[in-house]
């Protein structure tokens, strides 16, 4: 059986050259970077080089603007809470886009419990932040604006330079979560006007166990994990040197191969969506069309009348690894808040699948996925009462309405006695 990995937003394999670079730091150069002897001093040099490699990837002025954390989540927590706590006396209001990753959203919710307030700026149906609403959201109490570069679920590339201009005009620091773009789209922290930028090398073939936070040297930021004085006092804890070294190599390679990798996945992206659209009736692309508005590695689809987990499991049994934003897939039984924020019908959100391409995927992979997925949809629709009811004219399609029958949501509400949302 062919195996096709289409879940690069969840994990990527480590680059062999990154692994080779890491190897000696496990058993040979195992020192603690805080130590003043050979073993410590040697890894300090490695740490400095790794900082330079990350700085180069995102156009930071100096390696001193790069801080290492344990992952993208911690970087996001540090950016949001670290700026909020640092500016507490100035004001306690935050502005975020409605489709930020949970690591931002839930950090904000935590701060709300501690007395901060937050405005969530809506996005349009394609997932783009509404700049007018952003402008209006900023108050004299605002101390941070957080808008991600690319949405992790639907691939929308935010108009981040415009967002940066709005923040610059208002004099508010901007934090840009670049987890879904770093390594795939060019990033220039200065052109973005960003005071803080976070990302995770494990999204571009680096190792797990390390996240990056860029901080402009004038942005105020305090530590959220307290202890020793590692990372300039902004992140206590023994540095994960091997991972940091590997992440540096991954960043260097990503910078070098960025345009070829992106062009490659962009070609596959178009082929994938075109193929699915041709082979699977009642299917919808969530987020912008492939092109300048969408990350080149992401396809997010909703297939009507069937649910996402079943699609995911059957894909897996056919060797295809994908993700889903359906409520059945999430432990909280809620659909992805991103799909809710773009106003996607609940029925379509239930039938959601996220396919993310990588540098090693091929056209043959894509063709296999299209063909296999069409069969899977057929099988699941054969089991679905909704498909049957659609065919019998009891309910209508959301994607291509025929004007016959009630909506899926009305139907679901009727049979469950409660609204489906």
């Amino acid at each position: 059986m062919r195996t096709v990995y289409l879940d690069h937003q969840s994990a990527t394999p480590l680059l062999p050259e990154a692994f080779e670079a890491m190897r000696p730091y496990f058993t040979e150069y195992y020192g603690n970077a805080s130590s003043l002897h050979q073993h410590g001093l040697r890894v300090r040099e490695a740490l400095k080089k790794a900082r330079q490699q990350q700085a180069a990837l995102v156009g930071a002025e100096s390696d001193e603007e790069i801080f290492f954390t344990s992952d993208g989540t911690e970087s996001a927590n540090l950016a949001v809470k670290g700026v909020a706590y640092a500016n507490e006396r100035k004001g306690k209001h935050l502005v975020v886009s409605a489709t930020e990753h949970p690591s931002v959203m839930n950090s904000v919710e935590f701060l709300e419990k501690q007395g901060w307030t937050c405005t969530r700026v809506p996005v349009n149906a394609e997932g783009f932040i509404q700049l007018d609403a952003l402008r209006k959201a900023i108050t004299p109490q605002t101390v941070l604006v957080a808008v991600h570069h690319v949405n992790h679920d639907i691939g929308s590339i935010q108009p981040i330079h415009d967002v940066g201009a709005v923040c610059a005009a208002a004099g508010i620091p901007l934090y840009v979560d670049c987890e879904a773009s770093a390594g795939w789209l060019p990033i220039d922290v200065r052109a973005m006007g960003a005071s803080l930028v976070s990302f995770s090398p494990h999204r571009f073939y680096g190792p797990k166990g390390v996240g990056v936070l860029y901080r402009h040297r004038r942005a105020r930021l305090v530590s959220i994990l307290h202890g020793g004085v590692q990372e300039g006092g902004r992140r206590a804890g023994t540095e994960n040197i091997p991972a940091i070294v590997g992440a540096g190599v991954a960043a260097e390679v990503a910078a070098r191969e960025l345009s070829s990798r992106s062009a490659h996945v962009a070609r596959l992206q178009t082929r994938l969506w075109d193929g699915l659209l041709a082979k699977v009736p009642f299917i919808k692309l969530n987020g912008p069309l492939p092109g300048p508005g969408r990350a080149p590695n992401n396809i997010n689809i909703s297939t009507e009348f069937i649910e996402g987990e079943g699609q995911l499991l059957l894909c897996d049994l056919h060797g295809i690894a994908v993700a889903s934003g359906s409520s059945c897939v999430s432990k909280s039984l809620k659909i992805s808040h991103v799909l809710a924020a773009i106003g996607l019908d609940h029925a379509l959100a239930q039938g959601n699948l996220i396919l993310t391409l990588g540098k090693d995927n091929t056209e043959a992979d894509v063709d296999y996925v299209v063909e296999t997925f069409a069969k899977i949809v057929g099988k699941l629709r054969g089991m679905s009462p909704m498909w049957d009811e659609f065919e019998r004219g009891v309910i209508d399609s959301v994607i291509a309405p025929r004007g016959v029958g009630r909506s899926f949501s009305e139907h679901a509400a009727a049979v469950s006695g409660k609204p489906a949302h």
Partner: protein
Amino acid sequence: MSDTYTLYNSTVMDHFMNPRNMGDLKDADGVGEVGAAACGDIMKISLKIREGRIEDARFKTFGCGSAIASSSMATELIKGRTIEEAMSFSNQEVVNALGGLPPVKIHCSVLAEEALKAALEDYVKRHPEAVAKPESVPA
């Protein structure tokens, strides 16, 4: 499936991949369709009932793997039971027969129980005489 990793145990996976009694029953005596408000799943069970006994059962499910497996297993379990027996059917039977479900997925088995009960109710509405219980023993 030897060195395949699965989200559910092998019984659940088997019922998901090879569902038993999938489909509709022509001229069903009772049909129940229910939805789970929590997750949005929808399940439909159709029954053929002869002489107070469930002769046949079919399901259709819009839902996750464990919802499909739960409805498959539920239809297997209830075939041959009397209406009375079926009325006291509990989701725990489904869970046990499936060899367990992840905690967050227990509600799928509840949905199967509800779909079955809804189908039985539908049958009873159509055949009120079926529950007249002439032979019931005083408690």
